[in-house]
């Protein structure tokens, strides 16, 4: 466990030490609803949340750790109180947005700390945080940070930008060499997940008298942000159309293409009996095998797992993607034709 001072906790208030710090200070939550001296903390917490709902990152008044103890305390309290407010609002959308914004904020601090070539203790702290929270061993060498390729893969796998593909990274001796900003970017999602789990696991306190209005306001913001999706077209995406065309022509569709087509149609609600005839033109068609495999994919037989349609990225690597402009911003064929309301 890291022993942290208030300047570190102000930067990384999601670490274990922050909750302990609040307990040590001995503020009961109810005091935040009534104590005029604590109003500024409540305002700061609300502001912190509001900024996150607008897709922004809360900017601290503390720059480079230069601040009074009380300013640092306020910084820590406002984070903790923001969590309390989210819990009271009961809006899950706020959790995700706040966690992401706070992760981005912490990311900025970690990046600065890692980049401080002259301050070894700051670098060590950032490296320790990354190790303690995410179990990634970062080694600093010259101006680069080296992390094992396997750790890099685990953390970069959900990134869609091509620059994050391992092939676009400098790999040497089983390690990936990264700049401070890329090192920190790598754990952004995990930071978000970590903060999300902190919020999700925090108990929901009873309503704090005096904070009802703020909480109601947050609830309405949360409701407005809850997305609703609607299908605006019944058209299949080009990859699926292509696969169907291949089969209709009696040409061979590779196993991966058949997997894509079957899982796509199953997810769209078609039954095994409806899908099976599609494959009858395949050069190696066998009804018994087709039904067995479809039942397996649908989770009707075998392990009971229903297989999901592969992502666009996966299909690209299998040469099954035939993207058209309408495919922009989707990451799975199932999202084709959906539009946010």
């Amino acid at each position, binding site marked *: 466990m890291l022993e942290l001072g208030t300047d570190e906790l102000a930067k990384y208030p999601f670490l274990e030490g922050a909750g302990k710090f609040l307990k040590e200070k001995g503020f009961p939550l109810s005091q935040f609803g009534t104590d005029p001296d604590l109003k500024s903390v409540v305002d700061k917490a609300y502001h912190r949340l509001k900024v996150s709902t607008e897709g922004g990152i809360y900017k601290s008044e503390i720059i480079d750790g230069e601040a009074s103890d009380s300013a640092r305390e306020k910084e820590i309290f406002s984070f903790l109180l923001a969590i309390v407010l989210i819990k009271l609002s009961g809006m899950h959308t706020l959790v995700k947005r706040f966690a992401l914004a706070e992760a981005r904020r912490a990311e900025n601090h970690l990046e600065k700390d890692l980049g401080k070539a002259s301050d070894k203790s700051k670098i060590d702290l950032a490296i320790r945080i990354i190790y303690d929270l995410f179990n990634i061993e970062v080694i600093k060498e010259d101006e680069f940070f080296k992390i*094992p*390729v*396997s750790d890099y*893969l*685990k953390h*970069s*796998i959900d990134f869609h930008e*091509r*620059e994050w*593909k*391992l*092939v*676009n*990274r*400098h*790999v*040497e*001796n*089983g*390690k990936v060499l990264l700049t401070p900003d890329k090192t920190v970017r790598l754990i952004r999602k995990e930071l978000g997940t970590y903060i999300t789990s902190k919020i999700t696991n925090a108990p929901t306190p009873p309503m704090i008298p005096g904070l009802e209005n703020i909480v109601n306001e947050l609830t309405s913001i949360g409701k407005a942000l809850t997305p609703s999706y609607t299908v605006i077209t019944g058209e299949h995406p080009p990859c699926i159309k292509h696969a169907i065309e291949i089969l209709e022509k*009696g040409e061979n569709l590779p*196993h*991966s293409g058949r997997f894509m087509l079957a899982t796509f149609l199953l997810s769209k609600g078609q039954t095994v009996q409806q899908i099976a005839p599609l494959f009858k033109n395949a*050069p*190696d*068609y066998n009804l018994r095998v087709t039904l067995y495999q479809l039942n397996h994919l649908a989770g009707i037989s*075998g*392990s*009971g*797992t229903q297989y999901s349609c592969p992502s666009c990225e*996966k299909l690209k*690597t*299998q040469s099954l993607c035939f993207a058209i402009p309408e495919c922009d911003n989707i990451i799975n064929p199932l999202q084709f034709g959906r539009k946010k309301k």
Partner: protein
Amino acid sequence: MQEADILFLEDSFKKYYFNHFDLIKVPERTSEREFGYQKFNSGMTRHISIKDDKELHLMLMQNIPSDVYCSNAYYAFPNLPMNEKDWKEADLIFDIDAKDLNLSCRDSHTVSICNECNDVSKNSSKCLKCNSSKIEKKSLPCKYCIDASKIEVEKLSQILTDDLAIIKENIQVFFSGNEGFHVYVYNSQFQEIGSRERSELTDYLSLRGAIPETFGMKKLKHDRAAFPDFDDKGWLGRFSKQVFGSKSKRSKIITELLANGYSSFQKTLDNVSGNIGVKIDPNVTMDIHRIFRLPGSINSKSGLTKIQCDDLLKFDPYTEASFLSDDTVEVIANCPIQFVLKNKKFGPYIDEKVTIPIFAAVYMICKKLARIA
């Protein structure tokens, strides 16, 4: 396949298994692996747990399988259904297959077998006799196919050791028993990574998905200094050697690359990737629940044995992986392509009755190009 052919193959396989227990050994950490087998004209039996060589040999003698498999994954309960097995980790396995190398020789040794009328012809997309498009293709890989596959294995081993710090002793190469090689990597940092991460690793090894910026080419603000050097490690160095050819040409070629622009560079990169990227089947490496042909077992696509290659350069599968009997048997062969096994030439045969050694008869029957007379 007709009954007589199956009986003949089973008899030949059984003799092999009985005489070559020395070649068929269970892999390490046996009790954590899943085993499986297939019998001729039958489905797969898997989720089997085996504890030692004796149990494996018993299984082989009792069932006379056409193919035997073992997982690269380690499970807490290998004999339970897949979602209850409790996956722990898996060795990395790469499949290099001549059929994926787009070799020019392939057409010359591929035959087409019609699923409707069983007619066999040289490579064609439709049956020449009944015009059906339900065609099954079989290839009889030549020496060039094997040599080209070996080059890919060499490329792969080099990148695994140079870039990914895999210790040479932890890499084992096996002839697959048919058209290529399986490369196993043990005890690496990648044991516990999942399927998508393994897929990403194959993209790295194949130089797939590379962007111009990685190699110094930017859309705007051209910067000559950003281009890689000969001495750079990893793909940067390999790219330099491939594209610049020699150190003295580097500067001139960079000028050309810059003049041709970004999109042209992407095309260059795609071409380079086709040349120096390792051609592995990504679907095999990313499957962390697959059962792989067991080393020492026979591949029923050819009758050849999956065998470890200690000296890859010298390895000749058509002499070193053919273990079946030299006794003769009479078959009706319809194999329009000549092939060489154990240094003997066979064929071409046009629907004719011939007496040939069992190892050659099995090879053709496995490829549906002959039947017992």
